[in-house]
């Protein structure tokens, strides 16, 4: 279980508070207006943004001051998820080792690529992949990292609606097999609904506790309603 206890983030004139818990293997969409702090919240959990107060714990272990790589977290960023000078297989293998991959590593990488539907793409450079395929490769690396918490910071924002829905279904399926918890930032209520699970609304300097997506979208609270209204 992921727990944010009295978390306070302060960056210049921006402030965000969070006091919430995410149950194991949950699917959580993080929604809210631009600039409200959705990415900042994920950055704090991932170790890229320092807290001004409070603590973050995962399964009872305090991770507040850990280095990003030492946290039980795999992050998929909005872009630049792959080093463009390394092959797809090498990029995925970096989730396991920084050395030249050995036979066992190569087998795990091939298996992960197969799970995300990139069978046979291992020797390609990222530049030769489509946006959706790059997202799949990033997902394959999250998979081999063997971390219980996946943070997705709008990685599919540049994809069309149909492809985005397929990618979210893929994330859900792959994460289910890995037993991972998923937090995904999104702008689109359709994405939140597709992910199922729950929604954390970030607005007015506050990240609210997760509530079931279906119910929240059917009867949105004022902050979310204001954001969703066109």
């Amino acid at each position, binding site marked *: 279980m992921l727990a944010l206890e009295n978390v306070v983030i302060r960056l210049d004139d921006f402030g965000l508070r969070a006091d919430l818990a995410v149950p194991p293997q949950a699917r959580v969409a993080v929604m809210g207006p631009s600039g409200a702090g959705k990415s900042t919240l994920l950055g704090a959990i991932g170790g890229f943004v320092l807290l001004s107060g409070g603590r973050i714990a995962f399964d009872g272990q305090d991770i507040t*001051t850990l280095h990003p790589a030492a946290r039980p977290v795999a992050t998929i960023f909005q872009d*630049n998820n792959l*080093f463009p000078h390394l092959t797809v297989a090498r990029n995925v293998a970096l989730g396991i080792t920084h050395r030249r991959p050995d036979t066992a590593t190569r087998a795990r990488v091939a298996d992960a690529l197969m799970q995300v539907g990139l069978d046979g793409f291992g020797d390609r450079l990222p530049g030769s992949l489509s946006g959706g395929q790059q997202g799949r490769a990033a997902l394959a690396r999250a998979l081999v990292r063997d971390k219980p918490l996946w943070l997705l910071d709008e990685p599919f924002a540049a994809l069309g609606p149909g492809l985005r829905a397929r990618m979210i279904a893929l994330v859900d399926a792959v994460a289910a097999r890995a037993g991972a918890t998923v937090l995904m930032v999104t702008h689109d209520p359709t994405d939140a609904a597709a992910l199922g699970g729950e929604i954390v609304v970030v607005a007015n300097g506050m990240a609210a506790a997760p509530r079931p997506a279906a119910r929240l979208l059917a009867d949105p609270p004022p902050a979310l309603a204001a954001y969703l209204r066109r």
Partner: protein
Amino acid sequence: MAVRPRPLTVAGVAVAGIVFLLVAGTIAAVAVRADGGAGLRPSDLAAIRFTLWQAVLSAILSVGLAVPVARALARRRFAGRRLLVTLLGAPFILPVIVAVLGLLMVFGRGGWINAAGTGMGLPPVSIYGPWGVVLAHVFFNLPLAVRLILQGWLAVPSERFRLAASLGLGPWATFRLIELPILRGIVPGAALIVFLVCTTSFAVALALGGGPRATTIELAIYQAFRFDFDLGRAALLALVQLAVTVAAATLALTVALPDTLGGGLDRHVARWDLARRWPDGIRIGLAALFLLLPLAALILRGVPNLAGLDTSAWLAAMRSVVTAMGATVLTLCAALPVAVAMQRLRWGRVVEGLASLAIAASPLVVGTGLFILIFPLVDPALMALPVTALVNAAMALPFAIRAIGPQVAQTEARYGPLADSLGLTGAARLRLLILPRLCRPLGFAAGLTAALSMGDLGVVALFADGRSETLPLHLYRLMGAYRMDDAAGAAVLLLALSLGAFWALDRGGRVDAGA
């Protein structure tokens, strides 16, 4: 987040410290050794006057001629334009002494111009003396000025010219409303850069100047060394040179200097206010002729003489290659950590400033200081090549940092979070992220350093004797002995080595760069 010790950052700070010690230490040595008792002689005052006079004149002529050429290049599209713009960058890596020999072949006593002139009954013109020095400086700095001004021109949004077209502005109104403001912004900075370059000119003055009317301060330092062996006077003159450089650099701080390494000059701005093509064509043609003719003359004369080069020329060439390799390795090993430290530390600009300090002191001033420090300990001739490599590396370092720095910043901004999340630190981060992303600028910086060092005729002239002379110095001695055929052969060899080193290293950085 745990703060880990980062070896590259530490190394970068150390490099900045070493460069500072090198520059400050040599200046201190010069200051201590300077013989102020005798004061400045009339000939020294003449040297100061000539240094300033030729630098001002070279700046005015270079920039004045560059404006129409840059304007023509900015608004015309023609076959070979890209090649010409690339060639305008070549003088930067062209060995000075090679270009001087090329100019001699065209403008010298037995050169093409005089041959044509005497055919028409005109009196011969001489390239030796003050005007020869200015001519050579314009040859080197006209292309630089054209590139700087062209950059300013191409920075104008094309919408502005479209707006001018839609308002029906004619050529004169377009010039006044759009182009004149650009020139006002860029011309003072460009002129100041040329002025700065010319105040520390040594090789040109060595080859074409001399005597009471055409001796620069740097040449006077060399003469105090070589002819009088008066270290006290050389040191005093070095202090004078330092004062001139620092004064000029302080002046430069008040003017926004354009970036000298900028790229992307092959863009073309569409214009609607153009009439006849031929005036622009003539401007571009004359500039190209002025720049290409000396090199063509040199190559025509030198290639047949390549085979006749004797052992001493080939040995000098080998020394030059080794020195250039040493300078290149030194520069890369220094520039990479500095560029990384610059990006990671809050006071990165201080690190950059210290590491670039050599640019504030001229090579000959640093060389004089090193000579004073080394002379009591070892025979300077033995140290000629290491000292030359060291000074070349220190002089190339600022350019290398400028080439690498932005790419380091971009790499960290784009891929830093990903690398952090994967725990890529230390050697793994260097091997898997930084080096692969830096291939191109590293190759470019290496090529630049190798070419600059290969063609350098500066410090080596103070230190070397016949056993340790480099190819540029050997070439200078051949010219001094009027062995022009051998000199032309050696010059072609030096030209090939310099441009070849740049091409090979720059190219090496582009191979395998991936997406």
